[in-house]
């Protein structure tokens, strides 16, 4: 197990290095730089600025300086756009926001999705099953950028219950819509997967034996059926997590929540390379970490899996 974790982490390092190299090469290949956009600077001034940020050095040296900065001091460099802020500052201001609504979306999507899927499977072919399946199908074509305007239309424009955007330190009325918008499509996916895998498990021989033995229904479901049924769901939970982090780009843009996605889009528009890269590396590492977690959970739930 330990060697598996170590091996996985060993793959993570070239992945992150690849992200960094890729970003540097892209930046180098792209026409125009972070300082050529705003106004026509005299060449001497431009050279000075580029020297200050180390952009005049050859590419491999830039990559080396950047990577060693991260490894030794956990420093992602200064923002090219905001003079007095470092990438660490921007991430520190945006990430907690993303974490709050991301966490709640994840909890809602997984808890509700798994319960709905289990109920639908237990009441197979009843109206409950049809309702759950139907809404799951509909939900899967309602991504965050579709849900966000629809929610605002309903709750802000018509009902006037919730503010259409903002964060204000994360009061509940500002969190509700981002969470629903972010969670809907993943909730639908989790429901669908849970239902089909639960149906498969419920039809298997060991469940029939458990029933024949006269075990109470809740015991069969919770102790015997749920565990194997959750295995395929775990994989989709990993994907949902990544999707939700990506979705924060839309949520921040539409609801002005000021999370990490907002910094990313602003940085992308301003060609603020260091911020772009910092956010990409952060998201990449989180993805790798979360997938590792999923695989460990997999082995814990299913003892047949040995790494």
């Amino acid at each position, binding site marked *: 197990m330990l060697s598996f974790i170590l091996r996985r982490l060993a793959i*993570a390092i070239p*992945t992150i290095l690849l992200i960094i190299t*890729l970003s540097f090469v892209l930046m180098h290949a792209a026409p125009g730089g972070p300082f050529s956009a705003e106004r026509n600077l005299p060449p001497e001034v431009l050279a000075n600025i580029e020297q200050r940020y180390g952009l005049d050095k050859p590419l491999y040296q830039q990559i080396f300086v950047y990577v060693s900065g991260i490894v030794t001091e956990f420093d992602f460099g200064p923002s090219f756009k905001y003079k007095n802020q470092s990438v660490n500052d921007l991430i520190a201001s945006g990430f907690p926001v993303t974490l709050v609504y991301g966490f709640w979306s994840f909890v809602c999507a997984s808890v509700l999705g798994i319960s709905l899927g289990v109920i639908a499977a237990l009441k197979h072919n009843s109206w409950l099953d049809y309702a759950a399946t139907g809404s799951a199908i509909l939900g899967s074509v309602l*991504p965050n950028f579709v849900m966000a305007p629809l929610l*605002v*239309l309903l709750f802000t424009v018509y009902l006037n219950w919730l503010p259409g955007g903002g964060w204000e330190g994360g009061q509940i009325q500002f969190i509700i819509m981002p969470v629903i918008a972010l969670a809907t499509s993943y909730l639908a996916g989790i429901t669908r997967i849970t239902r089909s895998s639960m149906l498969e498990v419920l039809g298997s021989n060991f469940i029939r034996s458990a029933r024949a033995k006269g075990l109470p229904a809740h015991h069969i479901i919770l102790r015997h059926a749920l565990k194997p049924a959750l295995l395929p769901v775990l994989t989709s939970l990993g994907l949902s997590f990544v999707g939700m982090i990506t979705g924060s780009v839309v949520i921040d843009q539409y609801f002005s929540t000021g999370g990490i996605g907002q910094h990313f889009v602003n940085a992308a528009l301003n060609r603020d390379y260091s911020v772009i890269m910092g956010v990409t590396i952060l998201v990449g590492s989180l*993805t790798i970490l979360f997938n590792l977690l999923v695989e460990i959970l997999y082995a814990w739930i299913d003892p047949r899996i040995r790494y």
Partner: protein
Amino acid sequence: MLLNPKKIQQLAQNLASLPPDENSSELKGRSLWQLARARFARNRAAMISLIALLLIVIFSIVGSSLSPWDHEQIDWDAMADVPMLGAPSIQSRHYFGTDDLGRDLYARVIQGSQISLMVGLIGSLIAVVVGTLYGATAGYLGGRIDALMMRSVDILLAIPFMFVLILLMVMFGRSIYMIFIGIGLLSWLDMSRIIRGQTLSLKNREFIEAARAIGVRPLTIITRHIIPNVLGIVVVYATLLVPGMIMTESFISFLGLGVQEPQTSWGALINEGARSIQNGTLWQLLFPLAFFIVTLLSFYFIGDGLRDALDPKDQ
């Protein structure tokens, strides 16, 4: 002699003289694809979706001839008071209304449909071609080459795809071609994994062994013997991939980082509609949204129907 040759000859004559009846055509062997087609035709949701999708495709091709407005043309009268004069009506011949700039939404939805559908189709085409070849090659060759090829896929999959796509769009100009390149670069990864798994289970079967024994080259085995046998799964997965591609493009365009004016796509139109909710011009959101949702639902149902039709487990 156990068999009487005369009797056998008589039997053969009798058989030959029988009139060809209905039953004999029934008994003709039916291929996997014929059976699949029959099963698919019986799936009502899938057939309705197929018709809906065809209607949308036809609409996006010929719809513009039904309207006098061009997608770039500005109706100055309607622009003066979009919530009132820009509303959908037959008289003004703005069937879907106009946007904030007085441009005809009907024409713009048609244009957006063309681009969104094209992104979906081209994206999955790349995924099918590259992913199938890559996965089949890795699975067939096996060993170290397989390990190397699949590790690279693992590493690429760990990269936050959407972020790289945004990066590409920002750095190399926001154009539709950049979206194709970006989506094409990464869409084939999952496909290659699925095909590799299938190839692994195929490659030890007798017919592959036979091909190898008579000296068929590996490339020919892959293209002539392995790929035709994984085609069913490729078709199902490609159908389910299209909505994903459309969603990716719409996501990027919703952020304003995708297709640029005067071109548009469903995502860009939904974005415009979403920004003008407060003005009471609901049609700007609802028309593109309806097209988006109906198309995506259709693709899901068709994909599900194809899976049921092509999956021999479910007979």
